């Protein structure tokens, strides 16, 4: 999620009200642009996993936070296809810690907005937005408090 799609810069806020989710449309005349998911909590120990960055780099980043960064817990987030990678990272961290790390996973649904822009601006097509849901996972990777 670090690298925003090019689509995110051409958001048209005034079109956000025209929510018409069930409209049939001709796929030829519209370009589908996916917006970024909105409102991401971003603390220093939040890691958002994506499918563009190299897996090892993301794993190393988490390891660095836990070992060098002095964090007792980090939160690994994954959305859609990146859920698998987020789980993999969390399990790898746990395996390489020889059981010192624990995982606590939560799941959620994230609402995503797609923009539909008419290909040909001269045509009568109206720009539209469509919302859909996608699943997400949030894994807390932490050293349990000694008790």
């Amino acid at each position: 999620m670090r690298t925003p799609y090019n689509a995110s810069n051409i958001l048209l806020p005034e079109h956000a009200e025209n929510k018409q989710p069930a409209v049939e449309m001709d796929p030829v005349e519209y370009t589908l642009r996916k917006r970024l998911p909105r409102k991401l909590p971003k603390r220093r120990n939040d890691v958002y996993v994506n499918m563009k960055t190299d897996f090892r780099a993301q794993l190393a980043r988490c390891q660095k936070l836990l070992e060098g960064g002095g964090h007792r817990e980090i939160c690994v987030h994954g959305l859609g296809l990146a859920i698998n990678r987020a789980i993999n990272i969390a399990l790898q961290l746990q395996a390489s810690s020889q059981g010192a790390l624990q995982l606590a996973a939560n799941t959620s649904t994230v609402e995503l907005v797609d923009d539909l822009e008419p290909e040909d601006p001269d045509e009568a097509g109206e720009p539209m937005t469509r919302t859909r849901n996608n699943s997400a996972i949030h894994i807390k990777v932490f050293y349990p408090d000694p008790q």
Partner: protein
Amino acid sequence: MENGVIPGTCAVYQGQTHSNAGQPAVVNVSSPLKPAPLPIPPPALKLGQEGFKKVCRTEEDSPCPFPGLASGVLEMRVKEGSKIRNLMGFAMARMQGEKGVSGGGVTGGGLRQVVFTGSGRAVTKTITCAEIMKRKVGSLHQLTKLQYKVVKEVWESTEGGTSEMTVHRTVPSISILLSKDPLDPQEPGYQPPETLSALWEEKEGVESASQKTCKRPLGPLPYSSFTHCKRMCLGEGVSVLPPQ
């Protein structure tokens, strides 16, 4: 993947789910070594190109992630090719106890608990199923567990037929327990009911509060650093639409 595309009612698929009612759901006590019924595309190993053919794929018995769970709990094993409408049609009917589904442990209001498990590429689908069920049934307690599952594959040479290779692979798997009865909130991976969409926002408050109570001796105040980071994040070109 898309939670929204599921038809609102299960009624359409009920005839279907009754007919293959035994298939998608496997009760906990069934045989642990079950050959996968799905034709799984060959993995990224080089074996396929070197004249080897996968003849067998078995999932090794992994410990149940929920110790102390009653043995009669409905377990939905989500596979890569499972259709969400089939899974949900069956699971919703059992949880809601509609249409006189007879089975062990079914009382008036349907089952109390259900477990969704899936591994590899079925993980996303598993989460989606759990999310749909939470939304439809409401006030369900959730416990999520992650673990590696060991898959044993037997590869056979396509030329000779004599040489065989056994490959052990680990795939990430997820198990989600949804319960109408309260679960232990101290257990890692517990989620109370009705944290559907509030999770993102809520997490901020909850976790920064817990950071504060733990008094971690690192960096500046968690609150100040957090807002700073957030503002920087917004400046990077992420959607700046006001929440609606």
